[in-house]
């Protein structure tokens, strides 16, 4: 644990006159589970957009495993092992659930495009194993029985689960989860929480943006609180939830 896996240095993002994120600093260590919370519009999603390369023009620096990744394209960042699950459900809606997963194996394919083009036996074998892997990935999120239905026709909660499974398919080192629990049922929520915990046990570093503070507190040993584009707190759930600034950010300033 000599070096943090991800270092964010003075990240600032402006939209015209609006500053969505200002001078944001954060170090994340390998295997850490970090919850990022904050009221609506506090800059959480913007933060993810910067890390995942969705926005490429901003101030500050992002260093991943000692190398600067700010300014790179999303696909280059993904190639380095950073996977992202989007806030609203972003899926290949016109493909089946299974196909959604297999499409995410792009980065971990062992055969190249030519082998795939000529349908070599190695490629065929890989296809078969990938299919099996995909089915395996569907098991823990409980989507195995939906493998052949169109992703666009899935109930909302399942979409979130699928998105999670897809992020896992890329075999990430760092996982950015943007509100994986928004709008899903209680049982599903339990599923997701367990899953995230299990991933954490596997050593995957996870950054979790979530509104459901209860769930975040449940999962993450470390919380970062954003308000108005600034980091206002960073620490254990107990410290954070009793922090006056945090409470004010959420509930408003108390009288007097």
């Amino acid at each position, binding site marked *: 644990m000599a070096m943090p896996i991800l270092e964010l240095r003075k990240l600032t993002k402006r939209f015209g006159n609006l500053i969505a994120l200002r001078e944001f600093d954060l170090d994340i260590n390998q295997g850490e589970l970090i919850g990022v919370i904050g009221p*609506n519009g506090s800059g959480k999603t913007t933060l993810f957009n910067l890390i995942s390369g969705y926005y490429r023009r901003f101030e500050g620096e992002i260093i991943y495993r000692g190398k600067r990744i700010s300014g790179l394209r999303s696909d280059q960042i993904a190639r380095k092992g950073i996977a992202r699950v989007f806030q609203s459900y972003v899926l290949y809606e016109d493909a089946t659930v299974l196909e959604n997963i297999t499409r995410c194996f792009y980065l971990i394919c062992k055969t190249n495009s030519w082998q795939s083009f000529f349908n070599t036996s190695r490629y065929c074998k890989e296809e078969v194993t990938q299919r099996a892997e995909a089915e395996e990935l569907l098991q823990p999120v409980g989507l195995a029985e939906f493998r052949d239905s169109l992703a666009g026709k899935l109930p909302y909660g399942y979409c979130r689960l699928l998105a999670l499974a897809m992020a896992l398919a890329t075999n990430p080192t760092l996982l950015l989860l943007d509100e994986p629990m928004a709008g899903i049922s209680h049982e599903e929520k339990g599923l997701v929480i367990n899953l995230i915990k299990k991933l954490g046990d596997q050593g995957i570093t996870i950054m979790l943006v979530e509104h459901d503070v209860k769930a975040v507190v449940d999962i993450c040993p470390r919380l970062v609180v954003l308000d108005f584009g600034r980091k206002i707190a960073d620490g254990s759930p107990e410290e954070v939830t009793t922090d006056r600034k945090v409470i004010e950010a959420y509930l408003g300033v108390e009288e007097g």
Partner: protein
Amino acid sequence: MLLLKSIRVHYNKREAVKGISLEVGEGDFVVVIGPNGAGKTSVLNVISGVINPSEGEVWFRSERIDRLAPEKIAARGIIHVPEGRRIFPKLTVMENLQMGAYLQKDKTKVERELERIFHLFPILKERTRQRGESLSGGEQQMLAIGRGLMAGPALLLIDEPSLGLSPLVTQHVAEQMTVINREGIAILLVEQNARMGLKLANRGYVLTNGDLVLEGTTAELVKNEEIRKAYLGL
């Protein structure tokens, strides 16, 4: 004045609002609070007719208004100030205000309304010729509310006015809302910032996950520990 009877909303089979009933009286100031994703915005969208509820009824001044087109509802005096302000970026401040009065045919009334808004938000008067996109967040929020007022509403639905605003600006916007309400316009405020919402309104509803968990006068709600739990998950 406004009555919602067990409204349900589905997005893509997902139930976002699970049977909510709600009431706003004439000249009332009601707040709906709750964490994000609780379905607050969906409720406003149902009232203003942007989305149709899958179940339930909306009544306004003893007239059923669900299933009416948004412009029909706006014509009846329900004006929605949307979340994120949604100023028309390329229109000037003046034009943004004029858009608010789109359905208002009476020119003198529009003039009067404009006077009132400039009185309420003097900063807007200085910026009438600037484009909407050039305003700061707080100014945009004032413009959004001003634009809503231009329609001469009986009921103003305001969605998260504090979104992304600094506490100081939020404070200012809050004061203006109180002034507006005092002038006789009923307000249905949707807010995440619970303390501010509860301070301003006289009645409140608490939503989590599409369910109504609490309702009552703000005086009662302020003391309720449930709210803190709902928010911070403690």
